[in-house]
């Protein structure tokens, strides 16, 4: 995965649930990711699924991805071309799922960020820049294993590459 991501912000509030991201009423589409992704976040912002561009960045408040364990929530965002999600906090299953599918969850203060802002995320240095607003925020680094999994492009790729969890004995 690249170390510096650049894209336009889509702004969401607190408590975006997996039912917002990929509603249960499209359960039957789970075998068809492309079709499922056409409904991504439609109950939170109907414009998103229609107009999100590859490389765009999702920006949210607290507890992004709360609710179910459905990995499809991370997968549909990735399918829409999203490469990073910035939020003040993440629900833990979603956080893990995002890394596992190769989507960067970035913990940082998102106050003052608005829809359409140009953002730059430097995953290595742990810095988020809002180029439109001239804001710079530091972000919490991922724990080392999660960083390794993300760098390998996701968990399955990580296991294939190393034959197991690579950092088995490092805290």
């Amino acid at each position: 995965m690249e170390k510096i991501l650049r894209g336009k912000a889509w702004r969401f509030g607190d408590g975006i649930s997996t039912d917002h991201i990929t509603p249960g009423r499209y359960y039957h589409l789970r075998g068809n990711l492309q079709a499922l992704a056409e409904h991504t976040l439609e109950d939170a912002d109907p414009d998103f699924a229609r107009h999100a561009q590859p490389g765009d960045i999702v920006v949210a408040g607290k507890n992004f991805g709360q609710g179910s364990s459905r990995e499809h929530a991370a997968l549909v965002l990735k399918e829409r071309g999203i490469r990073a999600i910035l939020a003040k906090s993440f629900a833990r299953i979603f956080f893990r799922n995002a890394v596992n599918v190769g989507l960067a969850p970035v913990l940082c203060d998102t106050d003052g960020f608005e829809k359409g802002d140009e953002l730059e995320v430097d995953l290595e240095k742990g810095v988020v820049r809002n180029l439109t607003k001239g804001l710079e925020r530091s972000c919490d680094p991922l724990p080392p294993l999660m960083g390794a999994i993300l760098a390998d492009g996701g968990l399955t790729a990580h296991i294939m590459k190393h034959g197991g969890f690579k950092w088995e004995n490092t805290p």
Partner: protein
Amino acid sequence: MGYTLAEKIIAQRIGREVRAGDFVVAPVDLLLAHEGTGPLALDQFEALGRDGLGTTTLFFCDHAAPSPRKELSNVQKRLRTFALEMGAHFHPPGAGICHQIVAEQWAKPGQIVIGADSHTCTAGALAAFATGMGSTDVGVAMTLGQTWLKIPETCRIEVQGQLPPLVEAKDIILYLIGLLGADGGIYKALEFGGPVIEEMSMEGRLTLCNMAVEAGAKTGLCAADEVTRRFLEEQGRGEDYMPLAPDPDASYERVVELDVSQLSPQVALPHLVDNVQPIEEVAGTSISQVFIGTCTNGRLSDLRVAASILRGHRVHPDLRLLVGPASRQTYLAALREGLLEVFVEAGAVILPPGCGACVGVHQGVLADGERCLSTQNRNFHGRMGNPQGEIFLASPATAAATAVKGQLADPREFLEA
């Protein structure tokens, strides 16, 4: 300094001491997935190209059972075929909800359980370290028999006092989530203890642990004690019992003390689980559908309390009542006790054991503008299949009282009757 339940269970399984904050690779004793999350897990298992299962693997067809459409039928067929070939345990439509069956038949104290479903934490009631993960984590664990874990900090919930009549485990957990907030427990374990929990039935404990994730927690846990032993014996698996308790001097991130003696029935209002009010504040709100069931409150004791309120009454003409037993075992017991007869006579629809209306896949989808009072664990926007609908969460007693009154009602009104 002593150890919390979470630290103890994981330490025993990996053979060395651990503390909150440590990262470990741990063996997985039990693994589960259902038709919504299983296929993606199988994709990962197949991509990893191993030829055998790494651990005891359970598959469930519960979220859409029986299947309402061919896409889901095909997925269920794939799980069945895979299970047959690989020696996984397959639970067909009608067997019941995964978490209920795991509690009845599979989980035991001291195990590490992971499941591709967020309410896997339900099994924490049996003192198993049980947590939900996504399909890839589960597919990898299915292959390696291992997963990685960060040992969670523990928030101890100490419950004291005496629960008033018709105030239940559901009211305690709703109140607690209102207090902690939907993100108050992120990354943590909630460890339930104190005199009220010691006296609480396994069914009540399952309700508490089921909703730990609604505070964002990784798992909910109760000690394994006499209640656990009796439950396992009743399930014909007394040999699975092992006592397990946190150390008295365990180090907790936080201790929350609750006295429930004055607790009222609680209701979570749309669209967040932590939007909780006592029934006194919201009684009278009109409701179109009541759903009693799910992995939170579809157990025998739930059906009993609901039937005790509904007996001799009719469901109010302004609403409809759906009742879904959590498992085949619950269904049969409710049938034999005559509870289903009470529900049907009152005008309820009995759903097959499974998730039923909970997730909006089939059965009980709300019309635009309708409000549902459900005994489930989540009321997110669109959860029951229609984003124009609204979901209220409450106990089975409150649900039954509401079904009779046609509006949000206090079950304690039925006490004198």
